[in-house]
């Protein structure tokens, strides 16, 4: 099992290497690559099944129906304690060992050292200041993966009661209010609402990494985006500016568009998902 995981991580690494040397490498394996030995680290998390469906994301890649297959999702975002356990076992993801290729200088910025989180931080707060590479490695070592944007948005459109609450005013206002509020990353996980699927904290705690966060490219000049990228607007038929949900989603996509995979941002954490169904034990 652990070999398979190692292989998985190896693929990741070679992938990034080939990215950097696209022309020189053809079929040969890179010579000096150390095979990382990321392994499981004894943290198990509760997951819930998410029943698949077809839906139209607000700003989907193709602005068409997206098919979500059955999958399972972590109930909570990954906590500081969980991540600490991960780095204890997998030393290449420690603060002092991290390669520039995989994370910028903000990686675990507020941690005291490799094995201690910051004084102000709580064990049960969401891990933040982690790069996309780190988040991906974490999930893979658990036999999981990061959710896609479509999957994340699908689960996140639920409120407490229904699977698609995007038209409900109070739900959208809740999200918008949170977007305005700084410094929520110090809160603890599981304190926001439990949504229709049984998942917590998709809104109201921290932003979360997705596997394909950069597939919608906002240029940053968002007024251009309005004009040129039709896909962003046709998703919900004609744009209705009074619709609060447009703004909430627009802000999420704008945020994702500002990221690069090495960025480690204070208000950005992650959670993992899995293709297979899990059997819930009571």
């Amino acid at each position, binding site marked *: 099992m652990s070999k398979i995981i190692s292989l998985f991580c190896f693929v990741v690494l070679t992938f990034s290497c080939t990215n950097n040397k696209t022309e020189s490498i053809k079929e040969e394996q890179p010579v000096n690559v150390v095979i990382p030995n990321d392994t499981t680290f004894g943290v198990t998390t509760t997951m819930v099944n998410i029943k698949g469906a077809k839906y139209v994301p607000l700003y989907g890649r193709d602005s068409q129906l997206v098919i979500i297959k059955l999958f399972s999702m972590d109930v909570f975002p990954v906590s500081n304690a969980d991540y600490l356990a991960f780095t204890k076992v997998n030393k290449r993801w420690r603060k002092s060992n991290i390669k520039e290729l995989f994370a910028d200088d*903000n990686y675990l910025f507020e941690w005291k050292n490799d094995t201690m989180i910051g004084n102000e931080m709580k064990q049960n707060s969401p891990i933040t200041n982690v790069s996309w590479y780190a988040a991906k490695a974490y999930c893979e070592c658990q036999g999981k993966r990061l959710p896609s944007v479509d999957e994340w948005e699908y689960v996140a459109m639920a409120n407490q009661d229904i699977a698609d609450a995007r038209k409900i005013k109070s739900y959208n206002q809740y999200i918008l209010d949170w977007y305005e509020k700084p410094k929520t990353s110090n809160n603890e996980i599981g304190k926001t609402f439990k949504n229709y699927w049984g998942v917590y904290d998709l809104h109201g705690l921290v932003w979360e990494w997705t596997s394909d966060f950069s597939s919608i490219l906002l*240029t940053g000049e968002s007024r251009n985006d309005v004009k040129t990228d039709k896909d962003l607007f046709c998703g919900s038929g004609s744009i209705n500016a009074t619709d609060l949900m447009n*703004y909430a989603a627009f802000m999420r996509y704008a945020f994702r568009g*500002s990221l690069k995979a090495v*960025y480690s*941002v204070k*208000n950005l954490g992650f959670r993992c998902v899995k293709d297979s169904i899990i059997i819930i034990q009571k």
Partner: protein
Amino acid sequence: MLKLATVIGISSALITSCGQNKETKPKVDPTKIEVVGSSEAELTAPPFVPKPVGDRKATKLIVHMEIIEKEGVMADGVKYIYWTFGGSVPGSFIRTRIGDEVEFHLKNHPDNKLPHNIDLHAVTGPGGGAASSFVAPGHEVVFSFKVINQGLYVYHCATAPVGMHIANGMYGLILVEPEGGLPPVDKEYYVMQGDFYTKGANGEKGLQPFDMAKAIKEQPDYVVFNGSVGALAGDKAITAKVGETVRLYVGNGGPNLVSSFHVIGEIFDNVSIEGGSLVNHDVQTTLVPAGGSAIVDFKCEVPGTFIIVDHSIFRTFNKGSLGMLKVTGDENKTIFSGKQSEQVYHPEGGTIQTMPEDANASKLAKPTSLAERIEDGKSIYNKTCFACHQANGEGLPNAFPPLAKSDYLNADINRAIEIVLKGKTGEIAVNGKKYNSVMTAQTLTDEEVANVLTFVYSTWGNNKKEITPDMVAKMRKSTK
């Protein structure tokens, strides 16, 4: 890559502007002005501006601008999460001269939740810099531009949803002075209007979130100068001395409203219309578009408090767009006698000046009992007084004193009658707070004055005095 983008940006800017400027300004092509050395730009929070460029040469000017999302005070007891350039609303004032090459460092504080960018209207280039300055929290971007048009320009955030970023305070001014600088003046200040949309109505206490629906309907709860109610009033009023020339750099961040900028009791000697090169003279009110500016200057001839308003006047009296310029020094009785308070600002004051039909009506049915008097007084209050003193006599902080439980009111009936008849200008203290503004004389009959004052005295915890028309008539005679 970034460098390449910058090079392309600048060179394309050069090409376009060459085409535009050759005919109109044959003397100096601003794109060809050489820069000498480099220095860090002085940035200031409102209402202050950095020192003038004077005769310095064009230079490489380095600007460090930090974006901070933080809680601030919108009005007494009302809090709001502002998104700011440099920690203030409006953002830090940037002062350049034509030909400067600005190296702009835009930093998004790690605690911030959102990505931001900046569109400077002084930039000739795609998105005014917005396309090159999109920055995630905890990151910094650098881009450069050469300022090739003189004038006063707005900058703002242009990240989706653009309106919301602006509505939360992400705007400011960048000045491009001509070679040799603008003509020197004695005092310079930075005033920028903005409209705000809160979930609660105007005055509702507590932390008020942004209300997108109101923003879309363009129905602001607050219209203010420099980010909050009272930011330019009372202790924070801007100041000058008699004989000094004052220049105001006036901007309007919007996001929605256009400002009818006016200083009560002053006439602008010079106005750089829309912040550009065309100068108009002897202007009473100048229009400042959302996302636009104006530079006004005037000489302070007489002392007093001059009220800065958006002359779309309900915004001033009910939504907060009221600032003050306090001028100290010797009186000049030739220019202003100072005795006829009506002349300060007669046609305004939120009051209905004459309502002949209503006046007749109240003359016809003369109330005799106290209850009738109060009833009639209430309707007069709601027509004439409530715009300033508010529906429950609570007044407006820093602008209009309260009538509810008012020590000033209860202390002297005759003084109250006199104020209604003659108006009142200057500083008074009510319930321990100082107020310094203008109330105009009210054109009400003796009967009406008696009724409205009786109403005020008998409600909101005041001392229940009854005022009769005879008392009013006596005061009217004795103060003539």
